């Protein structure tokens, strides 16, 4: 199995440095070869486990929790760019295209 590292990096939105594609490629080949042990086990009847303590449907009421929420000022406190109480996000639509 050959992983397309450049394609994955685009999907994950992860900028790579020169040389990293080759290093990641080699690492993925090694890792996927190693985890192929799993194919030695006959498991088709096993259900997959996602939650180990078997909790199910943990709900809370759909209402504000004032002791948990952040104020607008707090929410913006770590943002590099803000404008009139909002986060500034990079432009994702290119009108010139």
């Amino acid at each position, binding site marked *: 199995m050959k*992983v397309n*590292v450049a394609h*994955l*990096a685009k*999907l*994950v*939105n*992860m*900028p*790579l440095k020169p040389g*990293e594609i080759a*290093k*990641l490629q*080699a*690492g*993925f080949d*090694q*890792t996927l070869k*190693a*985890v192929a*042990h*799993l*194919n030695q*086990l006959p*498991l088709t009847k*096993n*259900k*997959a*486990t*996602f*939650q*180990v*303590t078997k*909790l199910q449907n*943990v709900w*809370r009421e759909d209402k504000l929790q004032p002791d*948990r929420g*952040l104020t607008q000022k*707090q*929410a913006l*406190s*770590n*943002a*590099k*760019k803000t404008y009139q109480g909002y*986060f*500034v*996000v*990079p432009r994702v639509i290119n009108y010139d295209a």
Partner: protein
Amino acid sequence: MMLNQLTITEAQVGLRAKKFSIVELVTACLDQIKTYDHKLHCFLTLNDQALNQAKVMDAKPDWSKPLFGLPFALKDNFLTEGLRTTASAKVLDDYLPQYNATVYQRLLNAGAILLGKTNMDAWAHGSSTETSDYGPTLNPWNTAHLPGGSSGGSAAAVAADMCIFAIGSETAGSIRQPAAWCGVTGFKPTYGRVSRYGVIAMASSTDSPGPLAKNTTDAALVTAVIAGVDPCDATSSPKPVDIHPQSLQGLSLKGKKIALPQEYLLGEAKDLVLKAAEVFKQAGANIKNVSLLDPKFAIDVYTLVQRSEVSSNLARYDGIRYGADRSAFSYQAKNRSLLGTFALSTGYYDQYYKKAQQVRTQIIAEFDQLFKEYEFYLAPVSPGPALKLGTGQDNPMFGEIEDRLVEASSVAGLTGLSVPCGFIDGLPIGLQITGPQFSEQSILSAGYFYQSQTKFHLQKPKL
């Protein structure tokens, strides 16, 4: 003995008898940090309010609080309001959390005093603390060696007596392995026993916060404070907390069945673990060899589950709301995010992620069967002592391989303790005592018994 060397119990006795003040206790820890941290690099950020808080507490003591006046170190993936929290990742270099992790809040409520935030593998992605974006922590027993990880800063800080206790988090080995390599006591509670709220997530289905301490009683005292259901973490368990630090003694081992998984008796640590098993046998326990699934399968399951969950958890870092943009991620984060995304993608999900979760079911079933008959099992935490710096740099699965003897228990959400059980070439070795989910009291009692019969946990590194 210097004040910073005290255990929780010793410090409490001294404080209450007014033999020393909280300010003196905190000062002793800060002095130790000042003297040795430039050499070991356990801390990333110090709490400059620690002494002021100590003064306030000295003026108005409240001994009803279970950890009143006790200085501790906190792994840097726990959010601390207004105090820089980076998870050792440059992406979060200037991040100032707006709220506290539940674990931290509970420690504050219990009267503990934060000394500072400890170094770790960046995002907890590793078992060496060498992948920290801020440089490695060194092992206090020998600075040419790794402290283990990812909670390496916390483990080394306890070993070097820079704090009375510390907090770490474990996804698969990240408390127990650095505890083993640094010669301290590390406890991983059952998954969901301690809230993950406000802990920077690594693999959400196995992340478990827990203590690193100077002995088992201290580990129990801290766990009793931080454990319990949390409305902010839906995966925290609603089961009542059954941890009683004052009742660890008096465990009767007579006739109790303890398992020794043959597949886990690996490396140089094997002989020391067999000697440790003798200690339990002398007390009347019935030690039996058992066979478990080869740990190589647990490496595979853990690798796939963890990388998949990492890819989801690191997706949120956009550099817009907080932190730097995604170009600031270092190599391990890229490695894990990309492979995790691959394992979850259409066409490969069944082959990798789902298959891993199916084997996870098999691992859980095997443990269920084992614990029908046995109280717990004994094994090395790691096959050998702390490896040298640089060992893990070129292996894409270094952490997974180093942690192979604790991964099965982590993916099954079990509880386990690491206690020092001897030394090889002057470096400590850890014994794991691992039991079924929610058997914290039994496992801590077993650790207490072992430490009442041995003195390995009392040895200190020469700094």
